[in-house]
């Protein structure tokens, strides 16, 4: 064997060794994953409030920490469907629309009632009959506006069309629940409904000269307010209050057509490796302590646990869950089949 062959052989051995080292580098990371809980939340004020309130409470209750990932409900659902057998998350937070789709696609597991005693404190219609999900919160939306730059309190969605708001209105992509429910609210205000959305799209078309920016998600819409890029938009109360706490002069006004309401669920993912931890997580989210803290400033998340009273600022909007039934709601079963079509139509409309 010549010396040159010897050289090659050594090099090959070296590469083999390096490869083995490389592989072993990867495995500790894979191993660690099952010892904590992988949960999702929504970007923006949701993430903030859950990191501050829910995660520490869960840590205390279960002794394990949770890894929180911010992801829009639609994106989370996509990831669950794409990796059914080996889901990246153990417990997820969903908006109503994707929640219904998730049930249809079979990506959720029943919540074990024995491990989640707080389920008993929820109104019956807030728990899925098959136990595939539970509503953990409700969120109110209205007209958010910059109090320094918008002198008169806006009263109706039609106010956004006024010429004084040229280039100052913010929109959010229909990929988000906020965008979609607002479109439905607009349609209903203008005589349409979930199946007849044309009035809403016409409204957007007329709104275009006033549109200053389109945000990717509600969190991003908040930063637009923060940077002064937009002065008026449809937004959630928790995001608005969170901005206020940061010193941004913003407030939420009630539109003539009434507040709108959005509900969120938590679900255990099918094939998760940490079902018990996931159940404990949901139990913590439904607990009186956590929900109580979430209702107060600056998050104003409406509770679903009947034992939690509607606190100070929230009381200005509603006194209990019954009050909220008159708020604008969305029948997601009718929206879901055409959602992709609406998203595409919206994108084409707003394109510069």
């Amino acid at each position: 064997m010549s010396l040159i062959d010897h050289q090659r052989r050594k090099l090959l051995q070296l590469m083999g060794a390096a490869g083995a080292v490389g592989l072993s580098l990867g495995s500790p990371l894979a191993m660690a994953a099952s010892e904590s809980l992988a949960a999702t939340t929504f970007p923006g004020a949701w993430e903030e409030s859950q990191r501050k309130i829910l995660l520490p409470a869960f840590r205390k209750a279960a002794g394990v920490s949770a890894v929180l990932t911010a992801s829009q409900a639609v994106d989370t659902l996509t990831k669950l469907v794409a990796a059914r057998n080996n889901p990246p998350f153990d417990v997820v937070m969903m908006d109503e629309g994707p929640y219904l789709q998730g049930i249809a696609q079979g990506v959720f597991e029943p919540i074990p009632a024995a491990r989640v005693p707080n389920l008993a404190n929820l109104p019956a219609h807030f728990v899925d009959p098959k136990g595939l999900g539970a509503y953990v919160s409700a969120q109110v939306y209205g007209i958010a506006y910059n109090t320094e730059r918008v002198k008169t309190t806006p009263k109706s969605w039609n106010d956004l069309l006024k010429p004084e708001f040229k280039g100052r209105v913010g929109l959010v992509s229909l990929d988000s629940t906020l965008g979609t429910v607002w479109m439905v609210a607009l349609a209903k205000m203008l005589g349409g409904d979930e199946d007849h959305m044309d009035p809403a799209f016409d409204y957007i078309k007329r709104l275009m000269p006033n549109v200053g920016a389109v945000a990717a998600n509600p969190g991003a819409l908040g930063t637009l307010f923060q940077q002064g890029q937009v002065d008026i938009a449809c937004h959630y109360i928790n995001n608005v209050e969170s901005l206020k706490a940061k010193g941004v002069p913003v407030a939420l006004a009630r539109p003539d057509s009434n507040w709108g309401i959005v509900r969120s669920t938590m679900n255990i993912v099918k094939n998760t490796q940490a079902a018990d931890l996931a159940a404990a997580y949901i139990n913590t989210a439904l607990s009186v302590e956590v929900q109580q803290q979430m209702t107060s400033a600056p998050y104003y998340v409406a509770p679903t646990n009947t034992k939690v009273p509607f606190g100070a600022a929230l009381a200005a909007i509603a006194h209990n869950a019954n009050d909220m039934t008159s708020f604008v709601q969305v029948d997601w079963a009718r929206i879901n089949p055409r959602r992709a079509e609406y998203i595409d139509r919206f994108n084409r409309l707003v394109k510069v």
Partner: protein
Amino acid sequence: MAKSTLAAPRVVPARRAQPGRLSFNAVMGLMGGIGLLMLIGPTLIVLVTSVTSGYSLKFPPPGLSLHWYEALIFDSPEIIDDLLLSLKLAAAATACATVLAVAAAVTLARRRTFAARLLDSFFMAPLTIPSLALGLGILILFNLESAGLSFYSLLAGHIALCAPYVLYTTSASYAQLDPALLDSSTCLGAGGWFTFRRVVLPGLVPGIASGAFIAFMNSFDNVALSLFLSDARSEVLPIHLWHIIEDSLDVRAAAASGVLIVATLISMLVMERLAGLSRQFR
């Protein structure tokens, strides 16, 4: 890279005035100044913003304070986790890519055959094709194999991204090695492995190191591949920073950026000292 021996040493231009010399120098100077300002300005602005005492990205900042750096170090475990993940990924990808690419570079370096040139273009492909397309393709590959996304899917994409850099710089280094050295070493009785270890490798080390450094920085910075290929529960730092900037405008993003800038500057200066990094670009 040795300068061409034909280039004359810099000669002072003739004293006789050239028409238009003043205007030419003025324009070039002005535009060049603007260019340099554009190059370095944004980086400085981020550094200044990171020490703002306020909550938003107002510039100039209302006051100065280091509390965002404190928030970053003490109050942001998720950012630190992502930083560690990015470092681990970049290190692993660079290590694997270096081994693979050096072997290939040594073989392909001096050949001009069609096969060699074809392979060379193939290996350089990740530099030109949008990494999105590559990310999408690898994602589809993993989905078809029903292998879920994990650290490995991410690693695979990043190795493909890193390899061209190391290959390029190593080939360049190898091409500059004086063939007479190799021949004389063999003539004097040294074996192949000895020649490689004592004569070739030392000459290659600056090239390999520079390439590995550039590859590391590119892997650390890459967003497109990571968007498609990362396991949904772990996020690499650039993507997390992007989410912070887009979703909450938390000024901690500026602090994190400040840390990254300083780290990049220091490591760049070190690499310049040790391996003559800038020579790879000139």
